[in-house]
């Protein structure tokens, strides 16, 4: 298991961040002009319904692979239930939507195995957003990467661009959707970090399910809030981002492997 670290990004010539910096600079200018009208609220978890999300918050997950139990799929089931996704067909079809999956890792030398959940990594520099021709794939101010299905034309560029295989295309007409999670045929979808729950001040379903199962392997929180548990953990303990060499700065971090 070889996990590249963040500091490799500077030495890697593959990532040309010039364009990102240029675009980021223009965004920062826009931010200055907008800033006075932005209300700062103390407790991020209780955002009033009528206020927009802000970039003061960066939602993220910290997944402790050493606590993630092999064979346990409670987070996957909770995700399916919460988002109204039908459980995978038996036998599974390639077209089954998959917002979160359990990945089994095996060290080929020691034969030690581990498992961990992988979902949309909610990158700061999401490739899916870069390639989207319509602007349907976007990143919310608080770091959650979403698909605006009203605008998505189903071209699936983002599916190909995502290095984490996080996105699914819906091939068939759906019924009985969850009122909070509209889903339909012909568009792409992925983990929303349970945005409807987060906006209500709740935790994503997978986090809740993992706690309920007694594993506590997933922590949800605001990476920008120095007092949050997740921020304390990532500043005091070693954690990694998947494919850190791509310099996408995902909001999902892993530790314990």
């Amino acid at each position, binding site marked *: 298991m070889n996990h590249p670290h963040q500091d490799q990004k500077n030495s890697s010539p593959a990532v040309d961040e010039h364009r990102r910096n240029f675009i980021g600079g223009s965004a920062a200018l826009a931010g200055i002009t907008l800033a006075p009208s932005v209300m700062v609220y103390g407790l991020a978890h209780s955002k009033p319904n009528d206020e*927009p999300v802000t970039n003061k918050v960066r939602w993220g997950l910290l997944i402790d692979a050493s606590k993630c139990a092999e064979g346990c799929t409670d987070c996957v089931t909770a995700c399916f239930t919460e988002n109204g996704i039908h459980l995978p067909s038996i036998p599974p079809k390639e077209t089954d939507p998959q917002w979160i999956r359990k990945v089994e890792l095996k060290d080929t030398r020691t034969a030690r195995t581990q498992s961990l959940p992988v979902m949309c990594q909610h990158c700061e520099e999401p490739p899916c957003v870069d390639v989207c021709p319509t602007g349907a794939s976007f990143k*919310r101010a*608080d770091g959650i990467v979403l698909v605006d299905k009203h605008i998505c034309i189903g071209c699936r560029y983002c599916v190909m661009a995502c290095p984490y295989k996080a996105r699914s295309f819906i091939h068939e007409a759906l019924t009985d959707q969850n009122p909070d999670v509209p889903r339909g*045929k012909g568009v792409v979808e992925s983990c929303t970090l349970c945005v409807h729950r987060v906006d209500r001040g709740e935790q994503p379903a997978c986090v809740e399910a993992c706690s309920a199962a007694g594993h506590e392997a997933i922590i949800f929180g605001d990476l920008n809030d120095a007092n949050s548990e997740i921020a304390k953990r990532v500043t005091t303990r070693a954690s990694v981002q998947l494919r850190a060499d791509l310099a996408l700065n995902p909001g999902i971090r892993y530790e314990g492997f």
Partner: protein
Amino acid sequence: MMGWLASKRMGKWAASIFAVLCLSIGAYAASGAAEKPGPTIIIDKSRAGDRCVEDTAFMRKNHMKLLLHQRDETMHKGIRTEKYSLKNCINCHASTKDNSVIGSDEHFCQSCHTYAAVKLDCWECHATKLKSVASATPAPTASVGDEKK
């Protein structure tokens, strides 16, 4: 003399034309009252209350603009105010029979959209029933359907 005669004749003509017009409008109005074209909109006051979030005339003309605006606010900014939300529409306008806004020409959304021949594609993705509505009314099959697998 000739001028007076002409104007008198003209007056007669005008009067007869007016009478014919009145008659035909009256007949049209009478036939219209008997078979007035239009959708049958069923609103259950027990669920919907006395008035919508805006005046009826305004809503008839502008509901789609309100929904479109709210859609972008919610999707991109996370603003989830209830007033103009699609969920709020369903909350009041869902049928008391099956808690849905579509399904037949008696259902609120579908009745008008069928009449106006305007395609309604909200419901290809959005739920036509609310969890809260489904659980608040005794409709076991609906609540099971909404609970999600």
